[in-house]
């Protein structure tokens, strides 16, 4: 393993900002794995740390295939992580809205450019991603329909679902989108939480990446890793969005992955002063609960569940 500084920025009063990568193997740039792009993506950081730990062991055992190299970048936003902010500390910009970056541009454009220059030539790009609404997804791989997407390769992760996303205008400046445009096979892995750590989901995400690396011939047998699931493919726009009718305190009765039938009681929204029921949220369809929003206070019309219709 070689530890390398991919990008560095000197600060007025803080320690230098560094994007640090961990390189395994030699030769062809086979796979790059990026963890936290935002300061609150602690689960994504931790997942990378476990991957680094595992790859270090595999490399010592000679199980990285000859002529293949893997780069892991656990965090691209240490400055925000260390002060518990999601976006860049000074101007609140999102590094994941700055790709492919610009090396003469604004600070976060430079960070994106510095990172992208290092990782754009990898054959496969994997990002541990998070959603802007706090909540928990059923673990899945997400790929954008840019015309370069490869669903069959996404199956190699062995995660239960593959979600196909039709890019929206703001997606065109994300890492995943630009990786694809630069002809890498790009995958976003969503495994569980964001700002808290769920160990089961971390294990699942690490194993998913190891499965992918093994099936792509980048590592040899990764040990006792389960083969995973035969993935179902879901179009994101076909997920059934379940919204609150009223605002208030939400009492949830189902977890991600639950099977529900039309009419099942998913949640109650309560009056925050007297506890009376303001609205009941019923499942509009038979299916599997794919996403559960996690905040205790909810707005009216807030999206609180996404369900895969059976």
């Amino acid at each position, binding site marked *: 393993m070689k530890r390398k500084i991919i990008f560095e920025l000197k600060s007025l009063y803080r320690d230098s900002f560094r994007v640090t990568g961990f390189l395994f193997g030699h030769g062809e740039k086979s796979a790059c794995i990026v963890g936290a792009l935002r300061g609150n993506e602690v689960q994504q950081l931790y997942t990378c740390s476990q991957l680094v730990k595992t790859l270090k062991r595999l490399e010592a055992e000679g199980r990285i295939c000859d002529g293949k190299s893997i780069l892991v970048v656990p965090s691209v936003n240490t400055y925000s992580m260390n002060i518990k902010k999601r976006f860049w500390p000074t101007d609140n910009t999102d590094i994941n809205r700055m790709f492919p970056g610009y090396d003469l541009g604004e600070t976060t454009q430079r960070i994106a450019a510095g990172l992208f220059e290092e990782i754009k030539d990898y054959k496969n790009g994997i990002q541990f991603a998070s959603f802007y609404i706090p909540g928990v997804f059923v673990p899945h791989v997400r790929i954008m329909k840019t015309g370069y997407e490869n669903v069959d390769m996404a199956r190699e992760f062995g995660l239960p679902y593959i979600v196909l996303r039709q890019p929206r205008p703001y997606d065109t400046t994300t890492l995943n989108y630009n990786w694809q445009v630069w002809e890498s096979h790009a995958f976003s892995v969503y495994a569980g939480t964001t700002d808290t750590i769920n160990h089961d989901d971390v294990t699942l995400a690490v194993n998913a990446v190891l499965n992918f690396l093994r099936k792509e011939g980048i590592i040899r047998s990764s040990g006792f890793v389960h083969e995973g699931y035969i993935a179902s493919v879901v179009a994101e726009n076909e997920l059934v969005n379940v919204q609150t009718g009223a605002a208030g305190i939400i009492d949830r009765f189902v977890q991600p992955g639950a099977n529900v039938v039309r009419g099942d009681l998913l949640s109650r929204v309560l009056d925050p002063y007297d506890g009376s029921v303001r609205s009941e949220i019923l499942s509009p369809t038979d299916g599997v609960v794919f996403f559960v929003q996690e905040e205790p206070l909810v*707005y009216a019309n807030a999206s609180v569940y996404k369900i895969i219709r059976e």
Partner: protein
Amino acid sequence: MIETVTKIDLPVDESLRIVKNRIQAGKGKRISIVTGTHGDELEGQAVCFEVGKRLREQPGCLNGTVDIYPALNPLGIDSITRGIPGFDLDMNRIFPGSEDGAMTEYMASRIVGDIAGSDVCIDIHASNIFLREIPQARINTHTAQQLVPMAEFLNLDFVWVHAAATVLESTLAHSLNSAGTPTLVVEMGVGMRITRDYCRQLADGIFCLMHRMGIWTGEVIAPKKPIISTDGQVQFINAAASGIFIPQVEHTTQVCRGDYIGDIVSPLTGIVVDRILSPCDGMVFTLREYPVVDEGSLIARILEV
């Protein structure tokens, strides 16, 4: 008349209302004055006040409809938050929204629906807390043919015709222009402050445009003739190092290539870490207002002449 554009209940004993003031006389055209998408941009507040005040003073001069939307993001304005509080979302990246989307998307959809159909919309922004801007319109090349002639009546110093960017397709202006409502984006001043001269200047311009539209018969000034420029004439100066920026020029100064723009200094060591010189002859139309800079922070933009 004060009208509610959309109302959403918040979790604990409060409703979020986006409101507008509709001032109407006669059957002439409709202009919408929109601001407050970013909660830290306040210049538009004074423009809305000024327009409303003049309409109150001379109601007989109006022959049409003026809709004033002073706060598209009321929670942001109230809490000094640029985005939508609670979501950490830039409101100007969620348009046109969706009727059955989450709260933010629903609000965006209602806003677009309410403004759509105006004969002209003026979407007023105030840069951010970091940069000071001269009064200017920002127009996408795709809409320049239709919008530049309108912008020339707004009494602005500058019209910047910029390249189209896919990411900007989520803005209010793009959504409205795509829906057939001509929408001009005005940028001026600086975040969290009010620059009275600029606000009066734009208010004068809005009445000039209303006069041109045939909905204002009151007295108007002869609008300034703005410099109309494309991307190629704009030079960017970004910080070469982190530090404290101390300007040596005033905003709107004419400079020559090599002129001294300012220093980035280290208060700890007393060393000038970067001496910033102008890369061209021109006017400093954007100037850094907030002193702390990271490497890459925008220091100035110069309109090359």
